[in-house]
């Protein structure tokens, strides 16, 4: 590998670059579509990969490894962010800025997906959108394949039921 990272030799810059957009999308999903927070999470994820604290051993795909790192950093980031938000409420009278909201061409699906438990949403996104296998999604989320399979099928059945009921 010609462009491997010094502290993570099995990770190449070019491979990371190829995963960048997908990793950012995953970070956005884990931060409630907050672009600023997602950038922070991804930046922190790259940092721990670059300095070798998150070490890629080649037991999975790089994509699986990176998505797992992003998930762990996002969880830590969320805990820190909640403390930061509490501080802001105490120290600032200025309201938080509102995010732009674009028209949704399939609001029924959006409502149905947002009503799912978080873990089920994550599994759907990883498997259907990010093209992970159930086994890879289990590695990313650090849960068993059986759990992923259950979440996956329950989520789809729930969506089918809700959308079917809505169509009638």
């Amino acid at each position, binding site marked *: 590998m010609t462009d491997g*990272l010094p502290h993570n030799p099995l990770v190449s*810059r070019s491979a*990371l*670059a190829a995963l*960048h*957009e997908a990793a*950012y*999308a995953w970070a*956005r*999903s884990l931060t409630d*579509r*907050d*672009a*600023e*927070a997602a*950038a*922070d999470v*991804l*930046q*922190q994820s*790259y*940092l721990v*990969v*670059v*300095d070798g604290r998150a070490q890629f051993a080649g037991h999975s795909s790089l994509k699986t490894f990176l998505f797992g790192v992003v998930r762990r950093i996002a969880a*830590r*980031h969320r*805990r*820190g*962010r909640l*403390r*930061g*938000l509490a*501080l*802001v409420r105490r*120290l*600032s009278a*200025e309201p*938080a*800025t509102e995010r732009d909201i674009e028209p*949704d*061409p*399939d609001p029924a*699906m*959006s409502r149905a*997906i947002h009503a799912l438990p978080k873990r089920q949403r994550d599994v*759907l*996104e990883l498997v*259907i*959108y990010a093209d992970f296998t159930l086994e890879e999604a289990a590695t990313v989320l650090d849960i068993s394949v059986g759990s992923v399979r259950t979440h996956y099928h329950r989520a*789809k059945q729930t*969506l*089918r039921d809700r*959308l*079917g009921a809505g*169509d009638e």
Partner: protein
Amino acid sequence: MSDTDLDRRIRAHFERAAAAEAPDFEAMLTSAQSASPRRRARAWIGAAAAAAIAAAVIVTIDRRDSSVDDAALMAELSASTHWSAPSDVLLADIDGSAYLGLPKFNDLRYRMQEVKPWI
């Protein structure tokens, strides 16, 4: 609805949700690679640039490392981020941690890196 149609609608939902331009990869990775060991050794910045609220970025500093004093930390951060302490900085102590409210400069988030405790 067929399984294929359901998957297509789910995929389309996530595609719309993900539709946003990613930050520049090279800038992010280069910044991560350039975080100096000396800077990392000064203190621990937990969740860097955690909240984009009002016009500030909130940085949490864990005070477990008692060898780091505010003035030294300010100087260190100021040197690496271009903002001028203390006029641009809001510092508060809550529950044993220090919180800095920093002006949001374009390059700030990519320069604020984790800084490990002094060993």
